[in-house]
């Protein structure tokens, strides 16, 4: 992998910071996420650098808790979706035949129904609890992962070293593990980042419809939603979680750009 560019470093730094929040968020929080200790939308005061949210809870603490929740949920969802999508995609690519055909058809079909709408129906049906939420998103997302990993695997599988392995009589597992996976890692990781951002915003959207992470648990999307009225009164409350989301997304994208860069070589003084 090429050594990080300046922007890539920024991105990595951001991700590192968020990783800390993911792991230690609640422990860093000065107050509980449910403790009502101030007046709704209260202004910042000593000990409460970011002021209070719509219920008079400490914004900073909510942010830290919410960080763990939001990142956790998205991460879990994406991890699952990859755990499901990649093997499926690879198998489809290697096996081909009816296995591939059926799976691809199914995936295409599912992808025809807008994600939000599918999620809506499912969450309405099963009620929005954390596990349901995560699984729903994961499975809906895995379709896209499937497509990508299938294409990538087909690409690598067509290369001669993979052919050599097959001619050697290697099994599918070896092909996936040793020949394909290492060679499609970076695009997959990149996709992981993008999916993660998407999921993140998606959960935020679901929270907007009241189907996301349920109160009193903090999650950034939900916090934006809950505090949104304040924005028209020129209050900052909703800006913090929104910013938190935005920065993360930017960070991920910066890193991803770096990872995917070099596919098209930079053009110098050619004109």
């Amino acid at each position, binding site marked *: 992998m090429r050594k990080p560019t300046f922007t890539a470093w920024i991105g990595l730094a951001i991700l590192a910071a968020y990783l800390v929040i993911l792991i230690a968020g609640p422990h860093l929080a000065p107050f509980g996420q449910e403790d009502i200790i101030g007046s709704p939308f209260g202004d910042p005061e000593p000990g409460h650098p970011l002021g209070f949210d719509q219920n008079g809870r400490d914004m900073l603490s909510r942010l830290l808790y919410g960080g763990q929740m939001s990142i956790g949920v998205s991460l879990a969802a994406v991890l699952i979706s990859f755990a499901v999508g990649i093997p499926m995609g690879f198998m489809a690519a290697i096996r081909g035949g009816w296995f591939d055909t059926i799976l691809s058809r199914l995936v295409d079909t*599912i992808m025809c129904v*807008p994600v939000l709408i599918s999620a809506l129906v499912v969450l309405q049906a099963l009620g929005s609890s954390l596990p349901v939420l995560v699984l729903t998103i994961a499975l809906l997302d895995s379709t896209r992962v499937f497509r990508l990993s299938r294409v990538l695997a087909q690409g690598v599988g067509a290369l001669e070293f993979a052919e050599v392995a097959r001619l050697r009589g290697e099994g599918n597992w070896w092909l996936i593990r040793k020949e394909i996976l290492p060679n499609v890692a970076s695009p997959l990781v990149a996709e992981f980042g993008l999916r993660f951002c998407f999921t993140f*915003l998606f959960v935020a*959207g679901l929270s*907007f419809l009241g189907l996301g992470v349920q109160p009193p648990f903090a999650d950034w999307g939900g916090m934006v939603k809950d505090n949104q009225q304040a924005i028209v009164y020129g209050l900052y409350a909703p800006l913090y979680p929104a910013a938190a989301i935005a920065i993360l997304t930017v960070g991920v994208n910066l890193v991803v750009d770096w990872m995917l860069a070099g596919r098209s070589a930079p053009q110098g003084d050619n004109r």
Partner: protein
Amino acid sequence: MSRLILKRLGLGVFTLWLVSVLVFAGTQVLPGDVASAILGQNATPEALDVLRRDLGLNDPLVLRYVTWLKGFATGDLGNSLASGQPVSELIGSRLMNTLMLAAYAAVISVPLAVVLGILVAVFRGSIFDRVMNVLALACVALPEYFLGLLLVLWFSVQLGWLPALADTYPGMGLGEWIKATTLPALTLVLVTMAQMMRMTRTALLGVMDQSYVETAWLKGLRAPRVVLRHALPNAAAPIVNVVAFNIAYLITGVVLVEAVFNYNGLGRFMVDAVAKRDLPLVQASALAFAAAFVLLNMIADIAAIALNPRLRHPR
């Protein structure tokens, strides 16, 4: 080539059918009994039973699917369970609204995105490129309803230029309509532009490294001609693709924006229907969305086929 296109069309229809199955099956899992939902609090068991029979809720699943599909084929989408009005009426006007809003947004965002994409590709690595990239990121990085809210804050509450509500009604003048829907459209533009722009850029850069582009440079051509005549035509397919995808999103993914601006579109309508367990509505709108999606993808693919010289001019 025409054979390919026909095949693609067939595939599209097939997919649509599969989707109909999926939608029907999917909506069956919605809990809560529709009959009791309709009759409400003081529903007697007998009344419930009668209603269930009327609604054919007691028939076997497959039978219900077939009748449902038949209805669709004959344009009879059934009646809303909750309001009893014909689904086609309810959906029709709202679908129209959704499409119009999407069209409005697309008309702005697509050309803008593509042009900007070309520019950033040409001036790769320049400040302009970087700035645009960051802006694009910022747009995709914010929840769309929050973007919408910010727009409302600036253009409605503070400046008072545009209405905060996309309040449209039949028979309103075009001018009024545009005024009313500009903010939501703008929000959608911001949301969709970023991806199209970046995709255009990538696609173009991919082609810029092709040796026929080098040939163009070596002919002594200047950047504009190289890009427009030699790079762009060969990058068209992926661009068309992402454009189609985003237009599809404009149609199917705007629930949130509709909610923020209280726009009377199909998205919100469907959310409402889902909450009410109004299956005919849910199925119809879901299928409408899916259809839009399938259709646009099909168009994109067909365009790709048509744009490919190898297929357009076989040996």
